[in-house]
């Protein structure tokens, strides 16, 4: 009450700053923080819900998959390739100069047991599903969308995809069962 509007003269910092300036800035700051805080729920609602995040792992029975065959299973709504590789395919995957690879990685790091190659079947370019046993590399994959070629270890060799096909986390539960995720 003691302060009247004429008090604009009582500058706080001496550089012509007034209480009113302070009030403007304080109000603006509180308002900005408030708006930002209110925006977060509006943004975060679009992220996967806990129910989606909790999507269980997938178990695969390997006993029915013959050598040279491959099955596609669904894990978290995505295709996962489980390929029983032939000796030639393994040899081709191992016998590569890592310096030639756009995303260098040894085959041994990509397959716990060399005969079983397990990959997320999603092209690392823009997400199409590559086709098995096609492309320039025997036992590899070819993505029809924009022409990425993967080798028999699922590593990118030619085309726009930046990195190798992803290897999901998995554990062998016993000789013939693997759990993905």
């Amino acid at each position: 009450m003691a302060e009247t509007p004429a008090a604009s003269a009582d500058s706080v910092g001496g550089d012509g700053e007034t209480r009113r300036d302070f009030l403007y800035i304080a109000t603006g700051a509180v308002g900005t923080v408030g708006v930002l805080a209110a925006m977060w729920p509006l943004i975060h609602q679009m992220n996967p819900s806990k129910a989606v995040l909790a999507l269980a792992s997938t178990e695969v029975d390997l006993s029915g998959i013959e050598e040279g065959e491959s099955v596609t299973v669904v894990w978290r709504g995505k295709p996962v390739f489980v390929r029983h590789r032939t000796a030639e395919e393994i040899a081709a995957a191992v016998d590569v100069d890592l310096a030639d690879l756009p995303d260098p990685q040894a085959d041994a790091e990509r397959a716990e047991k060399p005969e079983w190659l397990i990959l997320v079947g999603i092209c690392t370019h823009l997400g199409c599903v590559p086709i098995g046993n096609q492309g320039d590399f025997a036992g590899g994959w070819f993505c029809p969308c924009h022409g990425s070629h993967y080798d028999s270890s699922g590593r990118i060799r030619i085309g726009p995809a930046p990195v190798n096909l992803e290897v999901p986390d998995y554990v062998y539960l016993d000789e013939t069962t693997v759990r993905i995720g």
Partner: protein
Amino acid sequence: MSNDSVGKRVVQWFDHRLPLVTFVNHSLVEYPAPRNLSYWWTFGSLAGIVLVLQIVTGIVLAMHYTPHVDMAFVSVERIMRDVNYGWLIRYMHANGGSAFFAVVYIHIYRGLYYGSYKDPREVLWWMGLIILILMMMNAFTGYVLPWGQMSFWAATVITNLFSAIPLVGDSIVTWLWGGYAVGNPALNRFYSLHYLLPFLLVAVVFLHLWALHTFGSNNPLGIDAKGPQDQIPFHPYYTVKDLFGLGVLMIVLLAFVFFAPNFLGHPDNYIPANPLVTPAHIVPEWYFLPFYAILRSVPDKLLGVVLMFGSLAVPFLLPWLDTSKVRSATFRPIYKQVFWFLVVDGIVLGWCGSQPPEGIALILARISTAYYFLHFLVLMPLIGMIEKPRPLPTSIAEPVLKGGDAAATAPTRGRS
């Protein structure tokens, strides 16, 4: 005053309180337009009419469509088979999308030819480009709704474009999807956006027209109207001209709707979405092909995405990249030729986008991508500096009337 009919007095009473009648009269009836507008100036009105058509057919479709991964495809089939005239409404909507882009692309090239983006119409030009981007988002979200194979894989590839962003890319894609892959949450939100965006479009169209009416239309000569002798009222001269254009457009659109409704679509979209199998040859709708070609012309993921979005961003700078003071290409001997190169470049890019990215199509796509950016970033500044424009007429009326016979004009706002 007291002689006025009751109706007229009611209108005046209302208009005094909310000047709606005055507003419409100003912008669509007596609005003074340059007297020399050609049919290239019809495409703006046509775009507006097609937008209304899309909203009307879209609202009807929304009464029958179900946005759920298990039901979307069948609900669209139900629209096609069971809903009374559902096939007509859906084919109008699907082909109307194509018509919208055809009309707007011509409208944009018109602006490029006649320098309509130059001072004082830069903001008008920006609003137009924003309309184009909103249209693209809208056509994309709409294409996902029938939930066929092409819908699903278009959604997957386009949302994955954002994964090229360093560091946060993957989180953004997960956020867009609301899951680990394109699925029900994505379909729901695309539907929500597909319903919203057309109304945002209406709002931006309003700003576009506001900017237009601030300085009036450009014209084939690219010189400013200097007075009433250079102008005629919008109604009846251009309302009639636009109506004729609408007739022609409807003939073409309805020819597609009735005789080749799926000509512009892809048969694969009549296969329900399957997240485990990508169709062997996925291509976007024809109006996205040039951009798709640019994306694929670069073997690097990030650079491809940057160039694709860049091709939409660069035209925003055109008013400053073009260093010529002369608007209309009619008086710009070098630019006129380069303009047609750009038209051809766009068509070549479109063809490349429709082909698998290999061999000659890939080489051509690379050349025409490079040319596209060369046109805007190098040729436009350079030509403006070295070109010697032909002499401009002193007024719009001069070449028409030769002697300046002012009596032949219909000045309307000369006094206002």
